């Protein structure tokens, strides 16, 4: 009889799996873990660095450089996928298993609070403290939760207002000024302004920018929602009104970064809110119609530069790491001036050190740096909350309805407020 032969391995594997899983403990998240934060502080040895896809080949050379200098404290680079959600889940699930193999992790600015509140990130204080004085303030805020720094700013990102130099001689400073220029767009038969208004993370970014730029805020200092204010209303109303009267073209409701870039490059937009990456493509791509007429400025605000939302990544040390001394050194190495410069030259990533933005050699290579500096200096981190996934959904859902005019700005904001309250009431 043939069958039993290959039943056995399968059955054995199955039984093994069941038995082992019973031992492994399961269940949801647990907090605290004070003990974990105390252990391994002086540990030195090989560590693992976890980051999303190294698309522009920045991390690998850095890791090689580090390894050449530290033969006994080698860093293994674990590369995750390119998808932010998958990176997030991967980290969550490894931390939940208290995996000591994820020593240093690269966290998106919006995950910092969540991971910190779950007790997974080593507070960067006392023995583990780093010097943040040279870093741009908003980037440091994005790594701070409840007054404690949990993650070192690594790279940053801020929004830039791209505009058509040929049609608009000087960039608008304020939102109202920009709306006033929309007649120029109309005269040229193109759309006036677009950002990213599709219902996804980019909408949270754009809606927060609108609210912050007019003096409101999504969350107050204690992390409580503060959306029932006149400022917040004025901010969101700017978007809703512009969409209703056509200054934001109808199709912008489907735009993510790429669609909006494409529209701008095709010469169909007067103003575009987007990230710095657009610059290189808009001046180099064959089909770009704005090569020679591309202007850049900070986002327009209420009566000065607007408040960009902050992108970028922070570096954090896992509380479960056994070699935290090495991890800290690596963290410092990865945020050193030399490395930050390398981020900018090799990967076109925005550095977190203010001084680099004035570096003439860098500016020659990345002409948007001065504008970006203004943008980041005035930036507001996206809501720093451990309930970020729920908060961003609440913002997206309601801002989307408000912009499309399906509900009034007031009721959208009040629903946003209630949703965030409910999420942070926790159940």
């Amino acid at each position, binding site marked *: *009889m*043939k*069958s039993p032969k*290959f039943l056995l391995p*399968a059955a054995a594997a199955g039984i*093994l*799996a069941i038995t*082992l*899983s019973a*031992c*492994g*403990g*399961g269940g949801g998240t647990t907090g605290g873990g004070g003990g974990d934060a105390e252990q391994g502080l002086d540990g030195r040895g090989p560590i693992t660095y976890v980051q999303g*896809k*190294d*698309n*522009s*080949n920045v991390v690998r050379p850095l890791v090689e450089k580090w390894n050449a200098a530290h033969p006994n404290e080698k860093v293994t680079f674990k*590369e*995750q*996928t*390119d*998808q932010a959600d*998958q990176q997030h*889940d991967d980290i969550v*699930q*490894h931390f*939940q*298993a208290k*995996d000591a193999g994820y020593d240093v992790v690269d966290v998106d600015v919006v995950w910092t609070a969540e991971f910190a509140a779950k007790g997974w990130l080593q507070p960067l204080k006392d023995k583990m403290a780093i010097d943040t004085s040279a870093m741009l303030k908003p980037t440091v805020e994005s790594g701070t939760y409840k007054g404690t720094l949990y993650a070192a700013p690594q790279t940053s990102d801020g929004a830039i207002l791209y505009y058509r130099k040929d049609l608009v001689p000087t960039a608008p400073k304020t939102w109202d000024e920009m709306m006033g220029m929309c007649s120029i767009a109309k005269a040229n038969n193109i759309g006036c302004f677009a950002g990213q208004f599709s219902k996804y993370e980019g909408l949270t970014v754009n809606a927060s920018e609108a609210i912050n730029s007019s003096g409101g805020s999504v969350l107050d200092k204690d992390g409580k929602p503060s959306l029932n204010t006149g400022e917040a209303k004025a901010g969101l109303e700017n978007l809703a009104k512009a969409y209703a009267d056509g200054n934001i073209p109808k199709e912008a409701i489907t735009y*993510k*970064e*790429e669609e909006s*870039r*494409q529209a701008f490059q*095709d010469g169909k937009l007067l103003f575009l809110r987007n*990230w710095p*990456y657009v610059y*290189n*493509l808009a001046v180099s*791509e*064959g*089909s*770009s119609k704005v090569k020679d007429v591309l202007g850049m400025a900070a986002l327009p605000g209420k009566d000065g530069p607007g408040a960009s939302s902050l992108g970028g990544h922070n570096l954090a040390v896992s509380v479960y790491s056994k070699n935290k001394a090495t991890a800290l050194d690596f963290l410092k190495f990865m945020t050193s001036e030399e490395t930050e410069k390398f981020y900018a030259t090799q990967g*076109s990533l925005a550095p977190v050190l203010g001084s680099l933005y004035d570096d003439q050699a860098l500016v020659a290579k990345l002409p948007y740096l001065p504008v970006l500096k203004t943008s980041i200096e005035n930036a507001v981190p996206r809501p720093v909350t451990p309930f970020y996934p729920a908060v961003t959904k609440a913002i997206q859902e309601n801002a989307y309805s408000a912009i499309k005019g399906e509900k009034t700005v007031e009721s959208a904001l009040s629903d946003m407020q209630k949703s965030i309250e409910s999420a942070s009431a926790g159940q």
Partner: protein
Amino acid sequence: MSAATAATDLRAQQDRGRKAAQNKEKWAQGRTYVSAVVVLIWCLAPAYWMVVTAFREVGFTYDTSILPTHVTLDNFNTAFDTSFGNHFGQALLNSVFIGGVVTVVSLLIGVFAAYALARLNFRFKFLVLGFILGASMFPGVALITPLFQLFTNIGWMGTYQALIIPNISFVLPLTVYTMTSFFREMPWELEESARVDGCTQGQAFRKVILPLAAPAIFTTAILAFISSWNEFLIASQLSSDATQPVTVAIASFAGAQPNQIPYTAIMAAGTIVTIPLVILVLVFQRKIVAGLTAGAVK
């Protein structure tokens, strides 16, 4: 009425009928061709667009000329290029490997289960059938969290077995069902006579039933392979860069710049992924249809 006149009448009637029928036939044939062209366009136009885009320069991604313009092979290079952190070549191998193992194992296991369900009489058969049906209904999203915990605990995250085993459970019910219905239609007299000739039930199964079932097994294998090849949800959560299949690789394809979605390279990769399946399906088209006829439906 004589028999002769009756016969002539009948013949005349038949002639008229034949002419009308011929006319009707022509019409029907015409309609068939029109319908066939509609079906062809409906099925192939989007795929055509994928191929055209795959051959278009990246700077002209949103060009909407129907005919190929700005033709280039660059996108295929880009698809296999690993410098942006894409591992498409590796992912292709992974998919073939995972799909192959899943198919072989599901068939090995499933054929026996199907045989038992179709041929043997035992208690709780209804229960077993219901269980397998239930298994095929279980929503995939519900598996991810618990499976992730299980695989983390036993250190299987990002390994091939972490992808193969859940896949087997998705593909297995399909295999068992297809094979069961096929086995039910088999001429069991042959097995009986083999046993009369002194074969044991096992020998009869091996020497008589399996060869007869070959077409169905083949079809089932193709169905199983395609189903595994298409799997996305589980793989997107449980794979690592080293083991991820093409579906995940393509969905997370990165461009030269952050936020850039390299549609042309994605379409090139999609074309590459689709071609082997299309060839497989074209070559074995008759067998697939024949196998389906014998197994899944009848």
